[in-house]
């Protein structure tokens, strides 16, 4: 076994351990502090404070956070690989806020459609708009134009969101604002089931598509020469990416910057170079970030439950700035 593979395995173990630690910490810390022993007893016997926490208080939220983070992280990695640009994430390009807007509007209009469906519709609509507006008539696409147009769509949905929020009565306004910031408070097993159910289906589809992604990485001409219908493959991959992001948004709201950060973070730790490995490590990294952001948001100010999106916003923005300065120095933008 060569050194590179060893490093990869070590990185994967580190990532897995980090996720485990994040989960345990997240289960232990809260208004009532638990010890690891309490949790262990609760897990084994199904009795005591540990069991209650696992089953009702924190368990569902943490599991939902893992699912939502993984979905968002994987989605980010897909777009980053597809557009070959670390800035190309569904949250930067307005897909997640489109999904969020659709859900808020749907709920306010009183529809009985399930959240993931609304979310998917909104995300796909935003993605289509971005594609239509940014891709030139001859089919060529400039990643930077896609990103900027996506930002514009994000501005538009943000305006619509704030309009909706100002129209609501105070109680609902606070609730909607929380949700639009991205929050994992008060999630139940229904949410967890939802995100893992949809996520699993999409993951299976992604496994089938991943080979096309590794061909597309070689450039369109070569990929076509190798027998791939590049445009169709790209469209399918983008579709899966949007739906993954929408799955995350449906249970956690449009939490900003997770999709942006997860890919590069996962890749740095595991050293994965192949699309499959990058997406997997991005999913795990996304889960870690989300679990920790939720933990920080609910414990940083005692007695106050902030939405997780506030934390990812505060820490994700400096990352974006750092990324910018690095990309600039490398002359990529």
């Amino acid at each position, binding site marked *: 076994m060569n050194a590179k593979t060893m490093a990869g395995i070590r990185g994967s173990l580190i990532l897995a351990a980090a996720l485990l630690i994040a989960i345990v910490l997240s289960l232990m810390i809260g208004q009532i502090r638990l010890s690891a022993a309490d949790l262990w007893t609760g897990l084994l016997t199904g009795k005591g404070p540990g069991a209650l926490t696992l089953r009702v208080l924190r368990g569902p939220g943490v599991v939902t956070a893992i699912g939502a983070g993984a979905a968002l992280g994987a989605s980010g990695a897909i777009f980053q690989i597809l557009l070959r640009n670390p800035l190309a994430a569904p949250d930067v390009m307005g897909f997640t806020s489109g999904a969020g807007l659709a859900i808020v509007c749907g709920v306010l209009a009183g529809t009985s459609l399930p959240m993931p469906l609304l979310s998917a519709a909104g995300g796909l609509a935003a993605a289509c708009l971005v594609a239509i507006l940014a891709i030139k008539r001859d089919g060529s696409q400039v990643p930077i134009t896609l990103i900027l147009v996506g*930002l*514009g769509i994000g501005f538009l949905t943000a305006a619509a969101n704030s309009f909706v929020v100002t129209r609501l009565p105070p109680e609902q306004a606070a609730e909607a604002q929380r949700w639009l910031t991205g929050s994992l408070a008060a999630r139940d097993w229904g949410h967890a089931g939802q995100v893992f159910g949809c996520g699993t289906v999409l993951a299976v589809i992604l496994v089938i598509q991943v080979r096309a992604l590794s061909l597309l990485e070689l450039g369109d001409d070569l990929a076509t020469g190798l027998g791939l219908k590049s445009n169709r493959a790209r469209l399918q991959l983008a579709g899966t990416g949007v739906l993954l992001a929408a799955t995350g948004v449906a249970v956690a709201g449009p939490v900003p910057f997770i999709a942006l950060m997860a890919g590069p973070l996962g890749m740095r730790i595991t050293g994965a170079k192949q699309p499959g490995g990058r997406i997997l490590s991005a999913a795990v990294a996304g889960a870690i970030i989300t679990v920790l952001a939720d933990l920080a948001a609910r414990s940083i100010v005692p007695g106050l439950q902030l939405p997780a999106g*506030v934390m990812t916003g*505060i820490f994700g923005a400096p990352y974006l700035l750092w990324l910018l300065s690095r990309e600039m120095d490398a002359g990529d933008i």
Partner: protein
Amino acid sequence: MRAMAVAVLALVLAAVLTLTVGVREGGFSLVWQALSAFDPNDPAHIAIQSVRMPRLIAGLIAGAALGMAGTIMQAITRNPLADPGILGINAGAAFAVVIGSLIAGRADNGLMAALAFPGAAAAAVAVFALGGGLKGDAGPVRLTLAGVALSAMLLSFVSAIILARNEALEVFRFWVTGSLAQAGMRPLGYMAIAAVFGACLAIAIAPRIEALSLGSALARGLGTKPGRIQLGALVAVTALTGAAVGVAGPVAFLGLLVPRLARRAGGHVLRRELIASAILGAAILLFADTIGRIVIPPTEIRVGTMTALIGAPMFIWMARRLRAGASA
């Protein structure tokens, strides 16, 4: 010159609409009476003097200030996407206001206004430093993304505070979008002074900014000091944006819309462009405000939402047009 005349006409029309639209009966003649022969016993007259007039004045200050600020920023950064909202300067002012009133435990107008200026200045310096503006040519993409990131971070803080305190949400959720409602409660006089100061400074240094927009080497060859021009522009933008945030909250996208139109009226002479931006900025803001009031009665769409709904498509259109080389 004809375009300038059109702009002035548009402003007059916008001002008249702001005063008259939605006045229940009497319309224009009632407004005219309230202004020319004010009767302190007539409630309709009082309403016009105490509600409509402040709204008009606030719109004039904020619109003119944001229009000019956008024009200066676009000239100095050579970035057609520059706008106080997009580059995070509004967010800086909003952040300072929200944090300051949280610490002080009060949210009166004097305090909010006094905090808006340092907040705007700090954000402007930060976004230029982060966007590479201090080193020389900052590409539009880099500066824009730096602004977006800065806004996202500052607004995350703001929403953390707002969500933590429900009473704060009530005050700020309206203010944060940008609105001309309740303008009578805002410190219009002081903000007008700040805006006029910023406008004079901008007009004074306009020829220097023109030189700088040819590139820093040529600008120095023309006998200007780039650092000093940038500082002057920064002070002007801060005064203008701070004043606008003080009277209307962080209204975004006006600074993006206006310069392009102002160029039609003012050609490529920055002083004329600045004057045209002031006129057009005020006109557009007042129009947007009036439309927001009447489009789905009885609800009022905040003017900040209106400008965003117009401005975001404009942003997309301009992003598409960015020359390949200009994206560097």
